[in-house]
């Protein structure tokens, strides 16, 4: 896709509009605790486009990382070599996260529910799981202690479930003021960005509501990809299409990553 193409005729994939939409939410200068995978892609895209002074912090220890390619693991050497400083993992969680210095926690998830709680632990009963997922990682404390949280994941009935088999990390718990009553300091998930649209919590009930739909997607499609009766905002917006510059930057980043790693930058901890 040539960068000078007319934006209105641009071709983009569902994953690309998800990534670009997620990256747009990160404002320049934000201090962002980044999960690996989709959040890391979106956060680095923001850094390479509209938010050059975003501060990216990874739980392995790099603060102010500026990787040249997307990290494949959360402890890639490039993160350390490009960071302003590298501290130990206890310091990351104790001083920087618990210390209240993180503006945005940017997380992925295996499943979310209608109140933006996150499951990354098990499908099925905990003691006899149908599927054993990797587990919590840094998410429970990122979800509770970052000033706000963005969640990015693809939307499907298996991923967007009415009731989670296991709450790994708290969103709005049972909704309403449940999160605040539990004594959780951060505001919680303010946006869930998917390949179909953007969901935001209702100001009072905290139920996730479709407030922006990606161009070419129907409301019926989004409802069918959601495991509960999805509420649609009365003033539903259409997501702005990715501009040519952002798309070019994303594709360039992924091409560089593929050349370096042999894959486009999936990711995991470890």
């Amino acid at each position, binding site marked *: 896709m040539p960068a000078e193409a007319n934006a209105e005729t641009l071709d983009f994939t569902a994953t690309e509009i998800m990534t670009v939409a997620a990256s747009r939410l990160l404002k320049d200068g934000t201090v962002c605790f980044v999960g*690996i995978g989709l959040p890391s892609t979106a956060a680095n895209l923001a850094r390479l486009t509209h938010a050059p002074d975003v501060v990216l912090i990874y*739980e*392995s*220890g*790099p603060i102010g990382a500026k990787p040249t390619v997307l990290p*494949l*693991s*959360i*402890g*890639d*050497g490039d*993160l*350390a*070599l490009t960071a302003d400083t*590298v*501290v*130990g*993992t*206890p310091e*990351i*969680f*104790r001083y920087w*996260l*618990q210390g209240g210095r993180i503006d945005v926690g940017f997380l992925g998830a295996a499943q979310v529910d209608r109140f933006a*709680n996150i499951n990354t*632990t098990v499908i099925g009963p*905990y*003691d*006899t*799981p149908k599927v*054993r997922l*990797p*587990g*919590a*990682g*840094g*998410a*429970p*404390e990122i979800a*509770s*202690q970052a000033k706000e949280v963005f969640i990015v994941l693809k939307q499907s009935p298996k991923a967007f479930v009415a009731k989670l088999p*296991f*709450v*790994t*990390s*708290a969103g709005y*718990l049972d909704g309403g003021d449940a*999160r605040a009553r*539990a*004594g*959780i*300091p951060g505001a919680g998930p303010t946006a869930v960005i998917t390949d179909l649209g953007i969901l935001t919590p209702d100001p009072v009930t905290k139920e996730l509501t479709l407030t922006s739909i990606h161009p070419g997607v129907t409301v019926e499609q989004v409802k069918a990809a959601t495991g509960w009766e999805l509420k649609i905002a009365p003033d539903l917006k259409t997501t702005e299409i990715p501009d040519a510059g952002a798309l070019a930057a994303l594709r360039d980043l992924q091409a560089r990553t593929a050349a370096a*790693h*042999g*894959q486009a930058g*999936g*990711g*995991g*901890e*470890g």
Partner: protein
Amino acid sequence: MANITPLREAVASLVHDGDTVALEGFTHLIPHAAGHEIVRQGRRDLTLVRMTPDLIYDQLIGMGCAAKLIFSWGGNPGVGSLHRFRDAVEQGWPQRLAIEEHSHAGMANAYVAGASNLPFALLRGYTGSDLPKVNPNIRFVECPFTGEKLAAIPSVRPDVTVIHAQKADRRGNVLIWGILGVQKEAVLAAKRSIVTVEEIVDDLEAPPNACVLPSWALSAVCPVPGGAYPSYAQGYSERDNRFYKAWDPIARSRETFQAWMQRHVLDTDDFAGFRRVLAESMKETA
């Protein structure tokens, strides 16, 4: 003072059946050579501790070395599941594996508490999570000054911690740099420790605030160049992402896993032998 000794001797004298063992390294500097040596020497009933059990613990669990795992994230980074870990949890093969599951913040604080000689770690954590419902070692205490509810979990106090580092000097002082994870805390929390290093040098040339573990705080230092493979040692080697991908089909079935471990680990004498056989088998499948 640390003994500078071959890895085989360090594992034989310092890692015992039934021990609580932490092999740490956050993606970087994962002590794979030491993990293989523990498998070769057939250790049993270990309680394994690690924030991010990945391939190294998949191998130890699949070979029946572990009775229990204390962890906060178990997966093959960038690839997917740990099939041997999942088989142990889901099917009890090769034996039942007890799990004690935390968050990263919990584990990191538990190592700090262990290194600080405290009985438990205190943190703002786990609020709203179901983890305290399935892990009785996550409890809540009241702040004696404000009454605030805080999470408490037992310190991690390993019998032995094993890490890999870049270099040691001839007296056994160790320098680590790059992504440090919880290595320093894990060593200082443990009764005994083994550090494998890329090389032994005359002078560490460490600046004053570098992460240096003094020889007198360590039990054994073992030169094992490339001993973190397929993880990496910054300044010495790159992470072999291909191997992490190749591990997925190897570990998927019990039979291919056992055959691979027999050929590459049990039938080799040491890590250099493992690397030679691995190079041959990678050529066969290329």
